[in-house]
Each structure stands twice: as structure tokens, then as C-alpha cells.
């Protein structure tokens, strides 16, 4: 499966150029002969096959979701939605209906029915703050577990891990009581002195519950950086902590970016606490989840709006992934990171 690393990318280019003048052999026969005589080509073919397979399987549900969003709500239950939205009828185009019987308006109704943008913003803010918090705290802890030797390391690591053994529900009752309690000290900062309806009521538990994973990821990546670099930074005049943030963290860019993306996504999509720590009002920091669920009633479910809102809600993540993948894939570690 490791197709390309077999040879330099420039080989591929050259081979493609060289492969041109063989067209007139039997198509299949020629192809097979090439495969055998040139395993690189076979790898290449396998590579493209896999890539396309992955693309189709990951993207099809989104495509389907999009079709669902375009389906007018009256069309549910009439025909199955497969490749075209329900009610899709190209012949309507002739009648001047450019939507061809679909309902692109769903993408606007999402915002008019509910302040969906505000929900997304809330989630975005909560996820951003949570991610920063997680990365900072987990960096410190991951560094300790990945690079330092001290007594009690394994037990402490297990203690962190134990948090992940429990379903979130196991934390809920005590946390709910805690976060709804009125703390007079908090009263000047937060209306009515309890954390309910305050973003931190989501940020704190969700970050903490995601923390073990972040710590483990960072631990693994930090452990891989050779000691020499940290030593060099310390000699150059950083503190140990400085060396962590100036050398270890940037060098673990793939790991940190991964932990960051996962953290953001996890918090952004979190299900349990998000739905319980606010009263569901956008102005009370209710997250995007409440927005999506807002289209679902006991009776009537606005499937098309749920689908449209999901697509919209996924967009920030898509942007994040585009940005972060640069980091994840930056070949920083090539060449000079060596013992």
C-alpha cells in the first residue's frame, strides 16, 4: 500500500512520460504487461483505486445528506431518495422552475426558523476555548509522561486513563449538582452565580473528559523527539518549559495539530453535556447541537432542515481540517530530527 514512497515522485513523472507510446497493443493485455513489467505502475493503480474507494465511501453520505436537504418537506415518504432529491424533476426546468422541484431554500430557512448562526458561533467559541485549554494542559502533562522519568509515573498515567473508562453519564449527576449550585463568589462575574447557562459549564467538563486522549497523543509524539534538541534549546537559554513550547511542541506539529483537531471536533460535536448544561437558548450559549435538534420535534421532524443545518455546521470543521492538515502533514520532521 505504500505506493509512492517506493521511488521518488520524479520517477513517476518520468515513467508516465516514458509510458506513452504503447497505446496500440491490446488495451488490457498491454496494461497487464505493464503491470507485471513495472510493479510501480501496479502500486500506482492500487493507490488510485484505494483513493477513489475511500473518497466515494466517505463522501457519499454527505452527498445524500445534501439531497435530503434539497428535498421539500412535503416530499418525504413519497419516494426513496437515492441520487436525486425527493421531488426532483428536471422537466420542471422547462416550466421555469430552476430549482427543478427541489428546495434549496432549506439552507436559508435554517437561519430564519432558528438563530442557527448563533448556535454555530456558540459552539465555535466553546470549542476554541476548550481546545486551547486542552492543548495547554495536555501539553504539560504529555510532556511529563512522555519525556520525564520519575516515581509514580505509571500510576498517575493510569489515573488519567481511568477517566476514560466511564460513560459521560457517570459524571453527570454530581456535576450537575455542582454546576447548578450558587457560588456567591461567582455572582459578580456570572449571572445568578451558578455555571448553568454559562459556556464554562460545557467547556470545563468536556475539556476534562477529552483530556486523557490529548495527553496520550501528545505523550507519544513528545516522546519521539530526540533529547538533543531540547538540550540545545536549554543551553541556548530557554527554561525547560521554554524548550517544551519552542522546540518540542513545534516539532511535534503533526501530533499537536492532530490533538487540536480531535479536541476541537470532540468539543464541537459533544453530545451529552452540551445538551444538559444550558437551557437550549442560543443567547444562553447553547451549542450547535441544540440548533440541529431544534428542527426535530416529538411529532414533526424537519429532516431537510436538520440535513441543511448539519451541512452548515460541518463547514467550520472542514475549514479547520483544511488549515490543520497543513500542520499535520508538514514534513518538519524530515531530515534533521535524528539522534
Amino acid at each position, binding site marked *: *500500500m*505504500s*505506493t*509512492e*514512497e*517506493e521511488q521518488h515522485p520524479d520517477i513517476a513523472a518520468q515513467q508516465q512520460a516514458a509510458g506513452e507510446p504503447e497505446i496500440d497493443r491490446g488495451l488490457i493485455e498491454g496494461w497487464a504487461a505493464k503491470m507485471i513489467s513495472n510493479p510501480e505502475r501496479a502500486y500506482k493503480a492500487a493507490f488510485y483505486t484505494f*483513493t477513489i474507494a*475511500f473518497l466515494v*465511501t*466517505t463522501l457519499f453520505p454527505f452527498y445524500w*445528506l445534501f439531497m*435530503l436537504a434539497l428535498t421539500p418537506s412535503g416530499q418525504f415518504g413519497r419516494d*426513496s*431518495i*437515492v441520487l436525486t432529491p425527493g421531488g426532483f424533476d428536471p422537466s420542471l426546468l422547462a416550466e421555469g422552475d430552476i430549482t427543478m422541484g427541489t428546495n434549496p431554500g432549506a439552507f436559508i430557512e435554517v437561519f430564519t426558523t432558528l438563530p442557527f448562526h448563533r448556535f454555530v458561533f456558540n459552539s465555535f467559541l466553546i470549542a476554541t476555548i476548550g481546545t486551547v485549554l486542552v492543548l495547554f*494542559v495536555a501539553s*504539560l*502533562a504529555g510532556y*511529563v*509522561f*512522555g519525556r*520525564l522519568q*520519575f516515581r509514580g509515573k505509571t500510576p498517575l498515567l493510569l489515573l488519567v*486513563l481511568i*477517566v476514560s473508562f466511564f*460513560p459521560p*453519564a*457517570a*459524571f453527570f*449527576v454530581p*456535576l450537575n449538582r*455542582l454546576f447548578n449550585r450558587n457560588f456567591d463568589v461567582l455572582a459578580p462575574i456570572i449571572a445568578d452565580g451558578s455555571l448553568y447557562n454559562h459556556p464554562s459549564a460545557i467547556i470545563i467538563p468536556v*475539556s*476534562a*473528559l477529552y*483530556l486523557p486522549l490529548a495527553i496520550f*497523543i501528545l*505523550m*507519544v509524539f513528545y*516522546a*519521539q523527539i530526540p533529547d538533543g534538541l531540547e538540550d540545545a534549546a536549554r543551553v541556548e537559554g530557554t*527554561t*525547560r518549559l*521554554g524548550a517544551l513550547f519552542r522546540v518540542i511542541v513545534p516539532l511535534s506539529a*503533526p501530533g499537536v*495539530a*492532530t490533538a487540536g*483537531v480531535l479536541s476541537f*471536533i470532540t468539543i464541537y*460535536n459533544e453530545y*451529552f453535556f452540551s445538551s444538559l448544561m444550558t437551557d437550549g437558548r442560543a443567547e444562553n450559549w447553547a451549542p450547535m447541537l441544540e440548533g440541529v435538534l431544534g428542527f426535530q420535534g416529538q411529532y414533526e421532524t424537519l*429532516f431537510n432542515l436538520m440535513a441543511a443545518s448539519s451541512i452548515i455546521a*460541518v463547514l467550520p*470543521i*472542514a475549514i479547520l*481540517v*483544511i488549515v490543520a*492538515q497543513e500542520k*499535520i502533514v508538514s514534513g518538519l520532521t524530515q*531530515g534533521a530530527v535524528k539522534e
Partner: protein
Amino acid sequence: MATEQPPGEDTRLLMRPLNWLETKSEAVYAYFLLAPAFALLALVAFYPLFQTLRYSLFADETAGADPFGEFVGLSNYVDVLTGNADVPRQFIDITTTSGFPFIELGSPFLRQALFVTLAFVIISVFFETLIGFGQALVLDQDFKGNRWVRVAVIIPWAVPIVIQGMIFFLIFNPNIGFGSDLMQGLGIFGSNPLASTRDGFIIVTVADIWKTAAFMALLILAGLQSIDRSLYDVAKVSGATPWQRFKYITLPLVAPALIVAMLFRTMDAMRIYGLIDASVGCSTVPSMTCLVIISLEQTRRWATASAVAFLTAVVISVFVLVYLVFLRDSGGDLQ
């Protein structure tokens, strides 16, 4: 000239404790850096868990204002394990459900929830790892447009669970989706996939793989990217075929990242709930966490819920121990 007199000597307050730390032993330094993490965990995890543990030792009280009755020790645990507890009859008795090869294991907890969960964990984690690895290898290549392929592969992970569940629920919804007809046509599904444990199980598993393979891919990709490329040069010269390079260089070097990914995937899969709830429902595919949530939310048996949560944790811990052994062997620094 020889003495260093930096112009902007750092006198910020923040620096003082950091400087103080420099001279301390590695252990003191370690504890200091761990403090924030443990403070957060103490507040949000250890304290609630301790409370929950306490709750699990009391009787359920469904009528009074206080949800807990008198102290009963471990009897909630005993009841859950022996099937005497009033955990909701939310779970199909798998043994009599056709078409799904479950064995009779005793109490409903063990026979249904545990078994469904374990089957789910093993199947889904296996395929997610396999597919995630494949995806990561593809994403690790340099090719035109790989940036977009990367986004496409990772994006399912970004889909909120509610929506993930909804997509698959709707695809297999007899009115709206096409999935049931397709699968029935292929002879894989029975007549009511959303009401059948076997078919529902497949739907949930596929949905989970669709979404979480991306998680594996992301972590493995990061691991792949951290490998010093000159090692591949050495291996190439040593005569390694691509497969051997994968086996002897890539695999062992991503192993720590891979095992961490699998570890957390396993723990997550063990706690599967949201997806089930949002797609086929807990009554079709009962998992351990379903049991907790339903006891908690629906029947308000908090003590029983707490006991089930702890039992879940015990089951998970068994798996985790296995992983930790692997992680240590793979060179992940645990000792």
C-alpha cells in the same frame, strides 16, 4: 565581553517560579507540570466519580424527592450481575432473537448489553483500524490534490453524532432512504432492519466505521509524518521491499500512535450510546451505556445507573490493561 549581559533580563513574575523549577529534581518538576491537568480532572472527573461510586452503594428511590434510599453496600452490583435489578426491560432477550448468534451468558447485563458491546467493539475497532491505516497511507503520499482528499477523508469525523445517527437512520428508513431495499435485495437484511437486532447492529457498526475510521486515519497519519524519512533510505539500501519497509519501519514506529488510537477507540466504542440512540435506538441494539443512560434518564434509578457505570468501567479496564502491555512493548514510554 565575555560575560553575558542580556539586554532584556526576564523579570516577569511568571518567570520566577519557572526559574525556581529549573533547579528542582525531575520529579518535582513533573508534579508541578501535572498540577493543572490533575486539578481539572479532580474537579470534573475524580470528584464526580467518587460521588457516583457512593451513589452506587445506596438503594434506588423512585418515589421520594431524594433519589437514594438506604445504604445497601454492593447489592446493586450483585443485582445487576445476577439480573435481579430493575434495569429496564429495555433489552431484547438476545437468546431468543433470531439470527444473531449470541450465547446465553446469565444476567441481562452480561447476556445482552455486554455481549452486544463486545461484539461491536471488536468488529468496529478492527475495521476502523484497517481502513484508517489504509486511509493514512494514502494521505501520506504526495500527489496532486491530496490536500482535498485529506479533507474528504477526515470530514466524516466532524459530523455530529446526532447527524451521523440520523443519516444512517434515514438511509435505512423505509420511507425515505434506499438502504433497506438495497440490502434486502442483496439478501443481507431481513424485512425490518431498524427493528432487528442483527440488522440494526450492522447499521450501527457501519455508521461507526464510516465516521471513526477518520479518527484512526488522522492519528496514524500524524504518526507516519513523524517518522524520520532517512530511515527509509537506510531500509531501501538494505534491500527492503515496500512491504518490508512498512512492516519493519513504518509499523513499529507508528505503533505507539496506533496503539493509543486503538486504545481510545476501544474505550469509546465500549461506551457507544449516542449513535445508537440517534439511529436504531437502544431497544434494538442495547449497549452497556444504553443501560446506564436509560436507568438514569428514563427510570431515574441513579444508584443502579451508577453501579452499571462502574461495571462498564471494570470491563473497559480489562481491555485497557491489554493495550498498556502492548504500548509498553512497542516502546511507548510508560515506565
